[in-house]
C-alpha cells in the first residue's frame, strides 16, 4: 500500500522510478540481515535490542514520511501547473529521493525480516514447507495484485484529488506507526503503560478481518493507551500544522 502510494506520488510529480530499485535492494538485504542476526539483536542491550531496533525503523519511516508530506503540502495547495513546477527547485530532488528510499527500505526491512524468520521456521519441516510456500505465494499474489490495482488507481487520479488523498493517508499511516513506537517503548518498560483511553473492540475487534485490515493499513489499535494517543498526536501534528500554515498563508496572500 505504502509502496504503491509512493510510486504513484513519484509518477504524479514526475520523478524517476529508479529509486524503487535502490530501496527494494536495500530493504531486502536489510531484512535478511535483521533475520540472520535476529537472535543477536534480541539479546543485545540487555534483551531490548529487538524493540529498540523496531522503534528506530518505525521512527525513520515516520520522519521521512512527515518530511515527504511537508514537501507535498505546497504542491497540493497550488492549483496552477506553473506554480507546481516553480515550487520544485532542483536541489530538492536528491532529498526527495532519499526520503522515498528511506521510507520504503525501512518498511521492507522491518516487514521482510519477519517473512524470512517465518519461512526459515518451515525449512526444517518439509511437509509443512510446501503448504507454507503455497500460502506465501497466495498471500504475495493478493498483496501484489492489490498493490498494482491501487497504484493504477492512484496514477489515474487527478493530481488535485491524489495529493490531498496522499496527505491524509500518509498522516494516518504515520499516526498508526507512532503508536507502534509507543508500544515498543511500553514493552521494554521505558514508558508507563497507562490505562487505555477507550476500547473500541466492541465496534471493530483487532482480531476481526476488518480490524486486521485497519491494523495493516493504518495501525489500528482497539484500546490505545494515553501514551499511544500522545505519540499519535505528535506524529500527525507536523502535517496538520503544515496544512493550516499554508491555508492561512494563502488567505493572507489573497487578501493582499
Amino acid at each position, binding site marked *: 500500500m505504502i509502496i504503491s502510494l509512493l510510486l504513484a506520488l513519484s509518477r504524479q510529480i514526475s520523478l524517476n522510478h529508479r529509486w524503487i530499485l535502490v530501496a527494494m535492494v536495500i530493504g531486502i538485504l536489510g531484512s535478511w540481515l535483521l533475520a540472520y542476526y535476529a537472535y543477536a539483536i534480541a539479546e543485545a542491550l540487555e534483551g531490548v535490542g529487538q524493540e529498540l531496533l523496531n522503534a528506530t525503523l518505525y521512527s525513520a519511516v515516520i520522519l521521512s514520511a512527515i518530511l515527504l508530506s511537508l514537501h507535498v503540502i505546497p504542491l497540493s495547495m497550488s492549483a496552477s501547473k506553473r506554480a507546481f513546477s516553480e515550487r520544485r527547485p532542483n536541489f530538492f530532488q536528491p532529498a526527495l529521493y532519499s526520503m522515498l528510499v528511506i521510507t520504503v527500505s525501512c518498511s521492507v526491512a522491518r516487514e521482510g525480516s519477519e517473512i524470512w524468520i517465518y519461512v526459515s521456521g518451515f525449512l526444517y519441516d518439509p*511437509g509443512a514447507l*510446501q*503448504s507454507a510456500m*503455497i500460502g506465501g*505465494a*497466495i498471500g504475495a*499474489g*493478493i498483496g*501484489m*495484485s*492489490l498493490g*498494482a*490495482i491501487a497504484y*493504477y488507481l492512484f*496514477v489515474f487520479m487527478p493530481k488535485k484529488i491524489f495529493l490531498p488523498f496522499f496527505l491524509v493517508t500518509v498522516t494516518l499511516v504515520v499516526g498508526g506507526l507512532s503508536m507502534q513506537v509507543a508500544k515498543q517503548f511500553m514493552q521494554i518498560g521505558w514508558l508507563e503503560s497507562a490505562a487505555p483511553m477507550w476500547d473500541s473492540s466492541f465496534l471493530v475487534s483487532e482480531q476481526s478481518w476488518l480490524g486486521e485490515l485497519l491494523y495493516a493499513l493504518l495501525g489500528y489499535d482497539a484500546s490505545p493507551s494515553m501514551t499511544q494517543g500522545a505519540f499519535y498526536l505528535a506524529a500527525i501534528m507536523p502535517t496538520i500544522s503544515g496544512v493550516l500554515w499554508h491555508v492561512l498563508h494563502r488567505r493572507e496572500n489573497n487578501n493582499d
Partner: protein
Amino acid sequence: MKSIRRFLVITLLAIVTLANFIAAVRGYLGSMDEAGQLFNQRMMQQVDLLNYTLPGLLEQIRTRQDVLLLPERSMDNGASLEFQWIDNDGQLLARSAAMPPTLVAPLEPGFSFVNFDQYRWHLLITPSADKKTWFILAERDDQRYRLAESMILQAVYPMVLAIPLIGVIIWLVLGIGLKPVSRLAEELRQREATDLHALEQRDMPIELVQLTQSTNDLLRRLSASFAREKRFSADAAHELRTPIAALKIHCDNLLLEQNPPLASALKLQAGVQRMHYLVEQILLLNRTAPDHFMGKFEPTNLTCLIKEMIAEHSEMLEAKHQQIEFEGDDCWVMGDRPALETLFNNLLSNAIKYTLTHGRIAVNTWQRGSKVVLEVMDNGPGIPEGQRERVFDRFYRVDGDRHNSQTPGCGLGLSIVKQVVDLHGACIQLTQSRFERGLLVMVTFAAYVPSAQDMRNRQASQYVRDKSPLEDEASTHE
C-alpha cells in the same frame, strides 16, 4: 501510462490473481470446515462399527481380567482412528495400541479436544448402543489437519501455477490485439520524408480509424503546404527574371551614357549581375529537384560532353590565364544531358572561380570496371576537411562571405551538383587535390556499355567536335 500493453497486462493479471486467490483462500477455509465435518462423521461411523462388534465380547473380556489390546493399523501419512472402550464404572475394557492404558478424558458425551502423548487430539465420547459401556474415539489433530490440507491443496496448486501462464497468455494476446497500432506506427516510421500519401484505412480496427483519419487530414494539409512552398521559390525566381533582365539593360545603357562611368553605376551593374546569377541558380536548383525533374535519361558520352563544356569555358580560362589539362577514357553513362552539363558546368566554374590567376585545373574521366569516375581537380585554396559535408547545403559558402574569389556566388552550385548526382544514382566525394594543394572532386557513375547505334552517334558528334577549338584529348589552354 508509459505502455498500454504493460498497463493492461499488469491490471488484468492483478484482477485475475486477486479473484483467483481470494476464491482459493475462501475455498480452502470452506473445504477445511467441510473436511472437519467429514472426519467427525467418520468417527461416528466408527462408533457404529464398534457397537456391532465389541458389546458381544463384553462377557468374554470381563473374564480375562485384563485390558484387550487391539493392534494398530493406519495408512502412511493418514489420520488413524484410535479408541478406548470403558464400562460404566470407568474400567478400561479395550483400547487400540496407540491409546494410553488410562482414561484420556472424563466420560462426558460429545466432541471435545484433549492433549496427551505430546499431541492434540479430537475426541468423540459416546455411550454404546446398549448403554452398558462407553466408547472414546480419538484422532490426532495434526494428522487430521495435514490430511485435509493435502487433499485441498491439490485443488489450490493449479490456481497458483496457472497465474504465470495466464500472464504470458495475456501478454501474447494483447500483443496480437495491439498489432494494428504497431503496424500503423511502423508504416509511419518507414515513410520517406517526402511521402505524404494518405494512410490505408482498409482492415483498420474501429478504435484506430479516427486516429488514421486525423493523421490523413494532417498529411493532406502538410502536403498542400509543402506544394505551396515548393512552387513559391520557383514561381518567385521565374517572375523575377523579366524585371532583372530590364534592370540589366537599363544598367548597361546607363554605363554607356556615362563617360567615365560612375563608381556607383559599376557597383549597380555588379549587383544586378549577382541577382541574375542567383535567380538562374534557384531555377536550376528547382529544375533538378527530384520531385520536379522532367529530364530524359539516355546513353550519353560523358567524355565528349566534357570536352565540349571545356571548350565553352575557354574564354573564362583565358581571362584568368589558367592552365587546364584533360585526360581520360571514352566513358559512357546513362543520364540526362542537360543535367550532366549543369553538373560539370558548376564543377568547372567553381574550379575556375576559386583557383588563382595562372593556376592549374585538371579534368579526367576514367573507366574503372563497371564504374565511370569524373575528376575535377584544381590547385586553389581547397575546402577544409570539416566543411566538406556542409558545402552541399543550400546557401552555404566556405568561410561565409569572407572569401576573396571576387566572383558572384550564392552557395547553390554544389547543392545543384549534389541533386544531379543523386538523380543519376551516382556518388560524389571531395578530397585533397593531387596538386600540392587544392580540391579534388570525384563523381562516380555506373558505366554504360554503348551499342552500335550509340557509336554511330558518337562518330557524328566527333565530326562536330573536330570543328571545335579543342583539338586533342590532352589539350592545354593558356
